[in-house]
């Protein structure tokens, strides 16, 4: 349960209901919390969403990972990090990016607040059986290309509604070769093309990543679990309602230009021309997006000046993401026009990054090193981009007003965001010595 789910406790209280399985329920405050390390209320004792979550979890005996504790962070970062989500489990969270957990081979889906109350009271959820889809990605990905580029390319290719009504399994050699943390980024973005579930079959990489985590099984129970998890993957001859295949062996860095997640360009492409779009409705939408984003058709996307950089969110705020970004900027300075932030996904990520000295690399370059939370992904906590400013964000949505009224958001990988912070403009991380 993230903080915006706290209202579910009010629903329970009105009906005099108890939480059916508090031992299987966890909470963290992420959407509304301050990420400002100098905030006058660092524990958010005055934040009504956090207060509601603290009171509700305490009353019902639910574990809440509070601000500053190991375990606290963005809900989709901590559920895998703590081993709460496991292969084969059903995981429901009141947030659309719950699909992130599917990278472990869990069946994980986002629900509304009313559903959270139902789950708390009954530990069940009424669902329709989804259609099945397999997306086979033939790799390997080229060096300098990340899993964020991969999923942006998938959404551009398939379209933003292609996943509607589907559970999507990401498969193929490009997926198999991805380290665990990069797989979370792929499944995270499932919601952005309509998929209610996004899955990757668990394998040795999954099991090694999970072993020893706080709530993962231990000893003989772990061995029994792994034996069971090895039976989860779809057989090679499995059939799907929809089966698509995409070759990503020549893929480079990607960045969005418009206000939907299929408005994607490779870094060496130009802003599209609506006059070349045959579909009238799409043409109208493109013109509106070009206007909102203040872009001219035919202009190269690389080199477009930017004001803000946000490295964070449930999509890209894990340790590997921060390492990748730090690699790009090491020893360089953020462009004078740019205000750049790094918001680690969890307290654990923050401490691990600090133990490696990543925070010093960022600070020395001129980045702000902040406290964990959703932050500038949606700006619900006041972390926003000013009207008319252009931002590179490693989050997941580029909708109109997403980062604040009049904000202009380009979604990209941590590597591209980091390179752009240095250049002061949308930049190709491969030209800045990014190592993958």
């Amino acid at each position, binding site marked *: 349960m993230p903080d*915006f789910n706290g*209202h579910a406790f*009010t*629903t329970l209280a009105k*009906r005099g*209901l108890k939480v059916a399985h508090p*031992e*299987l329920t966890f909470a963290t405050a992420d959407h509304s919390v*301050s990420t400002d390390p100098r905030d006058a*209320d660092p524990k958010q004792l*005055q*934040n*009504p*969403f956090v207060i*509601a979550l603290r009171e509700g979890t305490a009353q019902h005996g639910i574990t809440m990972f509070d601000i500053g504790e190991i375990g606290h962070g963005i809900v989709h970062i901590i559920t895998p990090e703590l081993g*709460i989500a*496991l292969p*084969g*489990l059903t995981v429901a969270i*009141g*947030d*659309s990016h719950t699909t992130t957990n599917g990278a472990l081979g869990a069946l994980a889906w*986002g*629900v*509304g*607040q*009313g*559903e959270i109350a*139902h789950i708390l*009271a*009954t*530990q*069940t959820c*009424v669902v329709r059986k*989804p259609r099945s889809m397999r997306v086979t990605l033939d790799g390997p990905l080229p060096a300098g290309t990340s899993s964020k580029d991969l999923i942006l390319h998938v959404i551009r290719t398939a379209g*933003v*509604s292609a996943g*509607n*009504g589907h559970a999507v399994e990401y498969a193929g050699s490009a997926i198999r070769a991805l380290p665990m943390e990069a797989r979370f980024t792929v499944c995270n973005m499932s*919601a952005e093309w*309509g998929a*209610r579930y996004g899955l990757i079959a668990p394998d040795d990489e999954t099991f090694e990543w999970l072993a020893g985590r706080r*709530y993962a099984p231990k000893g003989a*129970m*772990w061995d*029994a679990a792994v034996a*069971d998890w090895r039976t989860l993957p779809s057989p090679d001859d499995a059939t799907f309602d929809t089966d698509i295949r995409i070759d990503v062996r020549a893929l480079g860095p990607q960045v969005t230009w418009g206000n*939907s997640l299929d408005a994607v360009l490779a870094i060496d492409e130009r802003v599209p021309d609506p006059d070349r779009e045959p579909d009238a*409705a799409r043409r109208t*939408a493109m013109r509106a997006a070009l206007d909102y984003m203040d872009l001219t058709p035919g202009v190269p996307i690389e080199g477009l000046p930017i004001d803000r950089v946000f490295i964070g969110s449930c999509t890209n705020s894990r340790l590997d993401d921060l390492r990748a970004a730090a690699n790009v900027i090491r020893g360089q300075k953020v462009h004078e026009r740019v205000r750049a932030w790094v918001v680690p996904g969890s307290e654990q990520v923050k401490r691990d990054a600090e133990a490696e000295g990543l925070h010093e690399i960022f600070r020395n370059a001129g980045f702000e090193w902040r406290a964990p939370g959703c932050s500038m992904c*949606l700006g*619900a906590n*006041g972390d926003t981009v000013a009207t008319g400013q252009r931002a590179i964000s490693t989050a997941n*949505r580029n*909708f*109109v*007003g*997403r980062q*604040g*009224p009049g904000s202009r958001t380009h979604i990209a990988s941590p590597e591209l965001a980091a390179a752009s912070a240095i250049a002061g403009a949308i930049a190709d991380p491969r030209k800045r010595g990014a190592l993958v």
Partner: protein
Amino acid sequence: MNALVTLDGSAAPLFEADVNTDTIAPLYRESKGGAAKAGERTQDELAHNLFRNRRFDDAGNELPFILNQRPFRNAQFLIGGPNFACGSSRETAATMLAAFGIRCVIAPSIAGIFFDNCFRNGMLPLTLEQGVVEDLARQAANGAAFKLDIASGILTPPQSAPIAFTLPAFRREALLTGADEIAVTLTRSADIAAYRTHVRCERPWEVSL
């Protein structure tokens, strides 16, 4: 929840692709510590904030958005485009539509979380063929009344033939009676307990954290 038995009223045509829940239910971005809890908002406040940034300018003046036009101020239906209500899981997208008076959303495709949230807010989400929805949007343009009857499963447009739809029985019952979904599920507590016992034996790591 509020029961939904019949509707008889205008249908606001908003046939745009990919209208997201950020647009339908904009976030309240109050100063720190001042954010209101969703459950404490009044019906008027919820209705006012529906499509707020498309209905009002920064000074609060009305913009020429469809819901500000006369026949649609009391709309009971909304006719949306493909991938309606994509994006975040925020239930306020459904709550605000219901508070405004819109109890039925018709579109060629509707995002999954919003689709489920509709039922919990006493609303019917209805997906129909794109060509049919485009035709309904045309029929709706002058504010003519559409009729909906949940019991018989019939949508009656102003000009074309009635359209039959089917709902899962429990969804239909819940809409007609305004049933409390939690109470309905709790009548099956014995089945749920039996399943948990089964899991505890077969896959104990799933329930013994």
